């Protein structure tokens, strides 16, 4: 079965159809998806800005990152569940939507970035925890993260325009 056929099948399931045709549930799920940006992208941005030495620079990197992580995860769960439901409802339409494809690609990068970051430069965080300006690779990861998350928000909004 091709990816298109899978999307078509998801699109035609009972739950997807009732979501799509609901006057109330669909807008509510969409609103949760939009407002949870603040929890996910907002907290990610604050950690990135700390790595760049722009906010909370008198605080330890590990303290800011560690304490905000539960909020980021909460935001991720809210985004993933609501986003998954939105995709269910419009699976066939999303498949062909260029903005949706770009967004999925950016999401992959956004997921890989912290994996690489945590398994490389962040391992030595104890050495530069107090530094106002963090090592170059940490700043690079922060810039990449800010760029990719902005791209995700932009392409996510653009889905509605195609």
């Amino acid at each position: 079965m091709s990816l298109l056929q899978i999307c078509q099948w998801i699109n035609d399931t009972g739950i997807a159809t009732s979501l799509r045709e609901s006057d109330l549930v669909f807008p509510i799920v969409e609103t949760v998806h939009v407002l949870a940006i603040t929890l996910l992208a907002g907290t990610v941005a604050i950690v990135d800005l700390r790595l760049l030495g722009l906010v909370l620079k008198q605080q330890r990197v590990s303290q800011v990152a560690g304490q905000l992580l539960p909020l980021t995860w909460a935001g991720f769960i809210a985004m993933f569940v609501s986003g998954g439901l939105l995709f269910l409802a419009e699976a066939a339409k999303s498949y062909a939507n260029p903005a949706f494809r770009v967004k999925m690609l950016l999401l992959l990068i956004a997921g890989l970035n912290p994996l690489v970051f945590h398994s490389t430069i962040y391992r030595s965080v104890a050495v530069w925890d107090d530094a106002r300006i963090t090592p170059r690779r940490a700043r690079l990861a922060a810039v990449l993260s800010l760029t990719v998350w902005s791209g995700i928000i932009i392409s996510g909004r653009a889905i509605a325009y195609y």
Partner: protein
Amino acid sequence: MSLLPLFQWAAHAPIFAVMRDSKWGFAVVEMVHLLALACLGGTVLVVDLGILGIGLRRLPASFVARDLSRLFLGSLILTGISGTLLITAEAMKCYYHPAFRLKMLLFVLALALHFALNRRLSGVPEDTAPTAGLKLVAAVSLALWLSVGLAGRAIGFF
């Protein structure tokens, strides 16, 4: 004084034609509005939840609030400018829209409470735990900002 003439002017002003007539003009401004919202909402969440003991709870709330105030103001200005431009695209719809009116009311309240909270925080010594009163204000602030977002989203739904 009624704000009606101002909205009527915005609805027809040639300077805002790109907002009314171009699909991507509106879209780009809307994207900026969302990006700034992520930073504004993120800052509010981190400060208010920190007072409530969630997230940055081991850092003094007064310190966090002062440190993040530039990020808050920057994203506030950006949401304000982009939001105003979005209004000009549908000025008359907004003027009569109950969700828009509610959003503006809630926004003014949330902003006033935010500055009141910051003033109170600046008088709190860094090593003291937030009082119950302060926690209540933080909870009300969170609820108000959430309502601003809900009302804002509702403008697009009807």
